[in-house]
């Protein structure tokens, strides 16, 4: 067992070294900690035979929920998509650490990219009216008295789209989004919280 863990430690150390070189914002020790943490999160490897190991969607979501207080289903799915860069349905160790580096230490630029990715639900490179509507669907208390209870949300989507859509093509491209966020930082998480709160990070 000790032999095993010794080997493990060595593996982890080399891994950490390579990762810390590839990923920004983390040094070697931090990377090492994150790898251990990842292994812990992974729990007992269910089938050791597989070369690619990682977090599946369910586990990823539960981690996001517990660690970063993210609750919205659509947002968590979006985050999973953003983390899972090779689109194989599993967040690998490298993907996890890369994602975390953005979440915890990312520059504004990286965060804009990440958020855009989360909000672009179908991954076509645009945030459309419909996507915005889906993201904001429940954010206004519905007034049962009104004819169309969604009217408020629709109107809000229109207003927002009009303001952010710089090239007037009726949808938000990444450039639109980036420009708008740079003008008004509050818009970074415009369609839902997808970054951990700064108070959570310090914990």
């Amino acid at each position, binding site marked *: 067992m000790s032999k095993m863990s010794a080997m493990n430690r060595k593996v982890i150390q080399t891994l950490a070294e390579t990762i810390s070189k590839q990923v920004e914002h983390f040094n070697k020790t931090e990377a090492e900690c994150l790898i251990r943490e990842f292994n812990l999160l992974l729990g007992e490897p269910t089938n050791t035979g597989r070369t690619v190991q990682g977090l599946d969607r369910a586990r990823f979501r539960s981690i996001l929920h517990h660690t970063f207080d993210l609750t919205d289903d659509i947002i968590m799915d979006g985050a999973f998509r953003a983390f899972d860069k090779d689109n194989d349905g599993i967040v690998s160790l490298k993907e996890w650490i890369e994602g975390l580096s953005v979440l915890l230490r990312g520059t504004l630029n990286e965060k804009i990219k990440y958020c855009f990715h989360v909000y672009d639900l179908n991954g076509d490179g645009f945030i459309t009216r419909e996507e915005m509507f889906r*993201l*904001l669907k*429940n*954010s*206004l*208390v519905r*007034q049962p008295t009104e004819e169309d209870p969604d009217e*408020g*949300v629709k*109107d*809000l989507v229109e*207003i*927002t789209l009009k*303001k952010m859509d710089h090239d007037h093509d009726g949808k938000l491209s990444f450039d639109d989004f980036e420009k708008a966020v740079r003008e*008004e930082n*509050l*818009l970074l*998480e*415009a*369609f*839902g*919280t997808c970054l951990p*709160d*700064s*108070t959570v990070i310090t914990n």
Partner: protein
Amino acid sequence: MGLSLTKAAQWTTASSGTGKLEFTPMNESLLKEILCFVEQFSSQHPQEAEHVFEEPLQWRTTLVASDFKTEYDISEGLPLLQFSPPAVYVRSFSQLSKLVHLADDKKLEEVRTCLEENRDPVVKILGRSFATALEREDTQTDILSLVDKVKDPAKDSETKVKLCLLLQNMDKQILSKLLEEISEKVSLNPTAVKNEVELLKQLCSEGEKRVLKSLRYTSDFEFSNGCRTPLWRQPHGEICYLVIEPCDTETLYITYSTAGVFLNEGIKQEGEESGYERTSDVYTDLVTLLKKIACCYIPSLCLIMYFLSYTYSVYIVICWVLSALFLFSKTSAGAVPVELESSTDSEEEEEQPARHPEGNTDLPPEYWQIQKLVKYLKASDQKATVLTLYAMMDLNLMQETCQLAIRDLGGLEILLNLLDTKEVRCKIGSLKILRKISHNMQISRTIVDMRGLQRMVTTLDSPNKDLKALSAETIANVARFHRARKIVRNLDGIKKLVKLLDCGTPNLAQVSANQEKDVEVARCGVLALWSCSKSCKNKEAIRKAGGIPLLGRLLKSPHANMLIPVVGTLQECSSEESYRVTIQTEGMIKDLVKNLRSDNDELQMHCASAIFKCAEEKETRDLVRKYKGLQQLVSLLGKADNKQLLAAATGAIWKCSISTDNVAEYKHNALQTLVGLLTDQPEEVLVNVAGALGEFAQIPANKPTIGKCGGIKPLVNLLIGTNQALLVNVTKALGACATDKDNMTIIQQLDGVRLVWSLLKKPSPDVQSSAAWALCPCIENAKDSGEMVRSLVGGLELILNLLKSTNNEVLASICAAIAKIARDEENLAVLTDHGVIPLLTKLTNTTDDRLRHHLAEAIYYCCMWGNNRESFGEAQAVAPLVRFLKSKDTAVHLSTAKALYQLSWVPNNVITMYERGVVKVSCSVVVAAFLSPH
């Protein structure tokens, strides 16, 4: 005159004839009104006053021939005034008003008799035809046919019409005034009730115009006290019961009591057992009750009543309109538009405030947008809130209509409530809107009322820098009035704001991207402190919280947007001495001087202003010189267009020039520039310039320069102002200049001494003393000084009168002036006649050394005439003078010794001095003088 007499006045007998006017308060005020009218008539309407009455007004006067002064012509060609005791005949208003003036304290009596004996004055004044034409009812006569009707086609008919109009106008005024009085008093006595009932009864008589069908008392029997109620009700104060049938509402049963008028339960006739209970509110009079209870038709009641009691009042309106046209057509064509223009002007002014609320109701185009967004805000979660706030930021938030709309639609409340949540982004969004709309004073007040400051001050503790900065910035906007500033202080906000200043960067010139936010937080903190520092207690709180060194550190910043609030706060606080000292010891003067060279006018202004205040301290003045700030200040005078900057710069120059070393440092052109600023400048600049010149003139070399630059004339011109600070500084400057002979000549040519002298009449002690000090060199250096002083009528009395002042500085300055005046023997004689000796003697018990010095000096000079020395002795001035020698001030010793020397010419005085131990005291003084290094 007195058309109101027929109806409103209370005569002893109802029928006309030779009744007496009762001595009631109402008649009294009626008479006073008429008297006032008559008195002012000849001055206000000179032309009409000359009009000769148709018949003379005639009455038995109490005046006797000796009352008419010699210049008063009793018998003129046409007897306008005929006097054959005891009767007097008057034929014109001018004579009438003269006569009233003559009667003096009996004038009211005269008017009373005149009215009593001329029951129809209008007929006598205007002629019967005119009066009847006016009195006739229902005629649609206009003014011109009126003139036609008057058979007399004389040239003065126009005057007559005007006179008639004037009389009617007066009548109208008196009547409305009396009406007010009636309604005030009506609740109190039966006579007043009767009057009102009589007036109202007339409303029933008219045919179509009637407003009441009937009005009757329940009882015809009237007790001797005027009441018509059963005896057992009278203790309740009830005077009578009325039954009124209005035209269009049901019958009203009314109780008239001393407390007022009210509806009862229906007393129809005498002797009812019940129904006395009150069923309505109590009103002050019947008219008000009718107005309130049968409100549909009554609003015009007063007017109708008025018309009824005055048959020809209808004409008043018509006549006024026509006469206006009549007169206008006569005036030159140019005059009319001028009249109209001025009237529209005043209308506009009056309408301005009225239009304001209207402007508010003019909904801005954004109104509906705001309404929608506020609705969303109320219903949204965190995501939508941020987006809604984001949409709101797009509005024109600096526009008042938008700001008020946000408040009025309930948005302000939500924005403030958001500050209580944990959502940082919502708070930031909210504050981004608040910091803009809070520029509006009304919004600021509402924010305070909604406890907004409490929330913002709490937000200052947040770890989020954006939040801190935004809160501080909003507080800066809100804390523009006293109550808000007090709240910030009481919430410990000052301490929190001061904490923001510590941005931990020693070198503000090179700020890394990370530190930029800290610097921004500090900047917003200073902005808030700047606003708060307008309250004295906050200045103290900032100091206690250790704000001054932190401000000093920020003063090193190279950026104007940081420096302006920092220097602004410093200059605001420099009104406190503790700040001035700290600013100097912390080495901030150097930075202030450095920033005088900034290219930002506002910054320069605040720096100059700070130096202005700080230069009260000598060390500061020296430091300004050391850092070469003086010349920089002078160069700021070039920016003559910026008055605020100019005021600050001249102020700084003034205060800095209190140190003579500094004055020497200024170049010649500084003086020239300053003199140039003595004309066409706002008062705050003038005060400072005059102050500076006063200090400059302390150096002898500068005195002729000021004169040569043409400075004397504008200074003298400023003496007519009213600004106290300005007068003090101008007199000081003039006084300093007056020691130069050439300047003095100019001052005398411009009659400056008289102007300075007249300032002694001002109530302010500062002005008085400053003027008196300035007079001293003037008197000393003027040509024919004695003659000049004598030429000022009442001048010496004025001076002596000020010896009764309670202000020691005034007294000292006046004593000094007296010492100068008394050098002229003739003037000294006048002073003596006016009792200068007892006045000076009375002051000898003072302990103020400055006053003692000048007082002794004055006594010394006043001794040199007649037997003034003896008089001083008799007034017992010697003993207290001896005591002056015990003072520690050598100047007092010197002048006292001189005074005692003069007094010692009289043996009795010497005895007193001896008794008081003058020898011993003098010896000790002499010894002290020898021992002292001087």
